[in-house]
């Protein structure tokens, strides 16, 4: 089976790639486009390490086919900072030490960004449930939740 040709947008840039129909969007991002910021923790939708935003919706890149990206706008961790300006969530994650090993971090950041875009003033419970699909084995989640709440507060203030 010949590879499919896909035209899409990644972090605002027009991108074309070839892929097998079986390849997931995560495979394509990592192995074809070398955007390795999205991680594979499970390849089955359980860990959220591969979180990306597709046409405004938070999804697991491991549960989408690469061919499904045709015509969509994909946002990944690599597009989160604005030039040399970190996103407030990135800054707060650093300040709060909301990462230990950091492998879950890109997924959490992308997921938290999509939360704050929808809900600028989430409660702790809302943050916890929104992020329940992002596993972190290192931090016990405490500092992650604090960092998100603190970012929300700062962004509301600013």
């Amino acid at each position, binding site marked *: 089976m010949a590879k499919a040709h896909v035209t899409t947008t990644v972090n605002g840039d027009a991108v074309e790639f070839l892929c097998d129909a079986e390849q997931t969007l995560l495979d394509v991002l990592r192995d074809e486009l070398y955007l390795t910021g999205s991680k594979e923790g499970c390849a089955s*939708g359980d860990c959220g390490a591969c979180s990306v935003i597709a046409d405004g919706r938070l999804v*697991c890149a491991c549960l989408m086919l690469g061919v499904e990206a045709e015509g969509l706008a994909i946002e990944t961790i690599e597009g989160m900072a604005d030039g040399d300006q970190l996103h407030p969530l990135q800054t707060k994650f650093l300040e709060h030490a909301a990462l230990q090993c950091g492998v879950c971090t890109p997924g959490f950041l992308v997921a938290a960004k999509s939360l704050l875009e929808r809900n600028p003033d989430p409660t702790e419970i809302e943050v916890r449930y929104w992020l329940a699909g992002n596993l972190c084995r290192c931090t016990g989640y405490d500092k992650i939740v604090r960092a998100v709440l603190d970012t929300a507060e700062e962004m509301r203030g600013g």
Partner: protein
Amino acid sequence: MRYEAPESVEGAVALLAGGGPRGRVLAGGTDLLVQLRAGMVAPELVVDIKRIAETRKIREADGKLVIGAAVSGAELGEHAVAKALWPGVVESTELIGSTQIQGRASLAGNLCNASPAADTVPALVAAAATCKIAGPNGVRRIPVEDVCTGPGQLSLGDGEFVVAFEFPKRPPRSADAYLRFIPRTEMDIAVVGAGVNLAFDDGGRCVAARVALGAVAPTVILVEEAGQALVGTTCDAAALQEMAAAASAACRPIDDKRGTVEYRTKVAGVLATRAAGIAAQRAKESR
């Protein structure tokens, strides 16, 4: 594997009918991709139905709600009309997986994956929803409970797929609710699920009740006896207890990695009771 994304129902039917037994519908892909990866399925053709407008729409006309087969949980959760009419169905959808899964997972995928533990199915069955099915011989409609015939087994014929879910008109003083039990707070498959849909007369007496249970039998079951235990009552403690007993009695579960027979049977009654309580409260508030 070949991937196609037709833009019409007819196009999809043609592809599926021509693709033979190894063609698969792709909606949100949250079941299908996991199965592909695990080598559990190896379709020759995948037909993505998300580019067909009808599968992506939520419509309400004359109090009757229609939900497209591929509408995602997140889209449904944001739909105020759907939520107001069928809070139980919407909450069952919103329980599926994580926020990420919500961005993709659909009602039709949940139903057609044919897992006895699918969360939306007890709610859809309790709601007496109907499936609109398109196929080589045109369109037909069947009750949701007639779609799955066993774990992984569907009554759909070659080339057929679910296009939408159609809901009956909501009577006054009625509401539905869905609850499930999972060991964690999120990210688990239901050990037991209970969907309850109740309607009351203006005297507060239950006039119609449908109770459906998930994960306690090879398919989701509609427990007529449980519903009957509530009809004619005010859903008082005694009636609820009788309903719970009927629910537990109807269970034919298995022991598996997610729960034991004993556990599922007990908890089915507990959840049915709690869901009925929520549905009754909602029905009351709908006045």
